């Protein structure tokens, strides 16, 4: 039997889960070895040794978890499959630039006749790497410069320093990331960052805010079909008005505050893709409790997101989504402008300006403590399907109907009164547009909107509206 080279497939992008892309989204093709299948499948083999060549500072105990499965293989196809999986796992750690697998018959005195040696030839990443990215958020863009110290202590730990300069926010931050050996998806991270940004919708001229964050993430750990994330977050916020004309209601909120909160998120996601899915559903529930771990703001915040997708005739997809949330201040202090919900804009209720729905004071939007928003979409391929099977597949036309409401509630009134208030003065809009999918991360929309149910003070965008973002209603 000769040497079988399992040549490397395209290397996986080296990114941690903090970027929001899961490795399983990438739909990597399974290796195909059908031509030899009949000959080799029946032949029993034993994996005697697994070598990892090219290790420098990486600790071996980390790798034993990742390659343990290779020993369980009982025939050659299995060995190749398991080796391939192990290779993917090694790449996912984000500590190797390259991993190649060599499978050979065992050599030496104790070699069995059917013994195999598997060798992983790895190239470690340098101690210090730099990166340059551009990012698209919800109607904002930013440029990110990063410095990374991968594999600092030899167990896939990572230090990153990031500087990001964006249209709305400028931030710099330091983060430390540590996966649990053998369970890369369970990880622990500490992030410290400082953000300076603007809430232009909260003041006629931009007002400034600044945040220093520290958070500890433990995420995600699966229970049954759900994924859970736990997070402690400490945020030091400084709000300030730069504009003299900022309304007094916004002015009153300026100054320092410290939020310390525990939050939990649960996600069930059966969609086939995060952007423009064709089937499946999403349920996301977030809860945040602030105040019990210190700090000077206390509240309970709950919000959820539901999305259902269904494939219809002619490659068109029907999608329905519903968002909702509430913020309950605990104690005497009312909620802060930085914690409340905002609604409106091309990524939520289309036809309205960014975050320009709901309570306001002298033209500054103050956000609300209670909101809901729903949307119905019909996505179809472009008319006459130009560029079918290629570039044209990135585009879709869509027809939408959005509705939502945002308000403050007086918590003495009881749930009946609250529901009634949320059902009054509903803002809604309908329209059609073109959606462009950017990779599996972001999407761009160009819509023609007809806002309806406009209340006094809402700022609308009657006609063409452009939206870019990652999370869409």
């Amino acid at each position: 039997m000769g040497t079988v080279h399992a040549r490397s497939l395209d290397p996986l992008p080296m990114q941690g889960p903090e970027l929001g892309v899961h490795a399983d989204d990438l739909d990597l093709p399974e290796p195909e070895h059908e031509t030899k299948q009949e000959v080799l499948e029946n032949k029993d083999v034993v994996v005697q040794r697994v070598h990892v060549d090219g290790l420098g500072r990486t600790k071996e105990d980390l790798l034993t978890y990742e390659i343990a499965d290779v020993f369980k293989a009982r025939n050659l196809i299995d060995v190749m499959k398991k080796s391939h999986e192990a290779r993917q796992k090694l790449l996912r750690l984000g500590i190797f630039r390259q991993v190649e697998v060599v499978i050979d018959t065992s050599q030496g005195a104790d070699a069995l006749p059917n013994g195999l040696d598997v060798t992983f030839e790895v190239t470690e990443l340098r101690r210090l790497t730099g990166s340059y990215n551009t990012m698209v958020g919800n109607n904002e863009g930013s440029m990110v410069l990063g410095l990374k110290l991968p594999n600092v202590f030899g167990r896939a730990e990572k230090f990153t320093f990031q500087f990001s300069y964006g249209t709305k926010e400028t931030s710099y931050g330091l983060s430390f990331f540590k996966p649990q050996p053998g369970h890369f998806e369970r990880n622990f991270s500490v992030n410290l960052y400082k953000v300076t940004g603007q809430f232009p919708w909260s003041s006629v001229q931009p007002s400034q805010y600044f945040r220093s964050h520290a958070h500890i993430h433990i995420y995600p750990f699966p229970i049954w079909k759900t994924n859970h994330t736990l997070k402690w977050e400490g945020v030091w916020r400084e709000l300030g008005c730069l504009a003299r004309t900022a309304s007094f209601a916004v002015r009153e909120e300026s100054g320092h505050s410290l939020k310390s909160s525990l939050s939990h998120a649960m996600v069930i996601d059966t969609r086939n893709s995060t952007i423009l899915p064709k089937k499946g559903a999403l349920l996301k529930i977030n809860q945040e409790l602030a105040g019990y771990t210190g700090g000077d703001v206390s509240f309970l915040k709950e919000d959820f997101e539901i999305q259902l997708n269904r494939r219809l005739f002619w490659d068109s997809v029907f999608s329905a989504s519903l968002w909702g949330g509430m913020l309950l201040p605990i104690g005497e202090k009312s909620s802060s402008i930085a914690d409340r919900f905002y609604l409106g804009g091309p990524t939520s209720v289309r036809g309205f300006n960014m975050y320009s729905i709901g309570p306001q004071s002298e033209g500054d939007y103050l956000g609300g403590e209670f909101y809901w928003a729903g949307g119905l979409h019909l996505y179809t391929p472009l008319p006459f399907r130009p560029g079918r099977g290629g570039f044209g597949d990135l585009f879709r036309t869509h027809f939408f109907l959005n509705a939502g409401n945002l308000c403050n509630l007086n918590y003495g009134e009881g749930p009946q009164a609250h529901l009634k208030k949320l059902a009054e003065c509903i803002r809604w809009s309908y329209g059609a547009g073109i959606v462009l999918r950017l990779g599996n991360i972001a999407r761009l929309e160009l819509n023609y909107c007809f806002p309806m149910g406009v209340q006094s003070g809402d700022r609308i965008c009657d006609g063409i509206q452009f939206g870019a973002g990652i999370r869409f209603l």
Partner: protein
Amino acid sequence: MSLAAEAFVSQIAAAEPWPENATLYQPLNGKNHFFMLISCHVSYVPIMSQAYLKMCGLPVHLCCRANAEYMSPSGKVPFIHVGNQVVSELGPIVQFTKAKGHSLSDGLDDVQRAEMKAYMELVNNMLLTAELYIQWCDNATAAEITRPRYSSPYSWPLNYILAYQKQWEVRRKMNAIGWAGKSLEQVYEDVSQCCQALSQRLGTQPYFFNKQPTELDALVFGHLFTILTTRLTNDELGERVKSFTNLLSFCRRIEQNYFEEQDRDSQSGASSRHSKGPSLM
């Protein structure tokens, strides 16, 4: 305040009369009464603005807020919220009330007005700086009084961070104006000299410009009253001021005329002061 903003204020403000709901904001809320009293009076001497408005006969509500410093457009306290205008610091407040037709210095001629401005500058440069120096640069005072007071509205660890940040800021300012090298004794000496000058100007008159109070009186009263009524780690500063008997009686006079009488007139009214503020009596 920029020239354009000044023009804006005088243009807009003149159109409307003084409203009933004018509010003077000063730092710290009333959670802790002891802290509130000393802070409201020492922090940035808002009492002079209050005295000024009282001298003008303008009604004003008092409101203590922990974040007053950040609410103010210039970052300085106190500020007044009148209608939809926000005006901070004594100078702009004087300008603003003048635009509304209330002025204390109308009776003065140009020479007197120039003199008044000169004395106000002296007070701002000497007394204000000396107060800041003692509050933040004298280690004992900063550790025992100023930092705990400044940080009281915040929770850990923000209280430490903000207080040290403030102290660092003040010390940097002192470096810039050349006060960093001064000893406490030298600062006391400066205060004495300033008081000496004020005492000579005042002489035996009831106010600096004879019968009518002006903004200079409000300013001097604000600073001296604060120095006299604030408990510090030692009494040296207060004693220095007390040695000028005419200044002491000047403070008592203003306190009696503008604070106590009005308190009696309107115990719960719009212009009433905190029920038990510090007093010179």
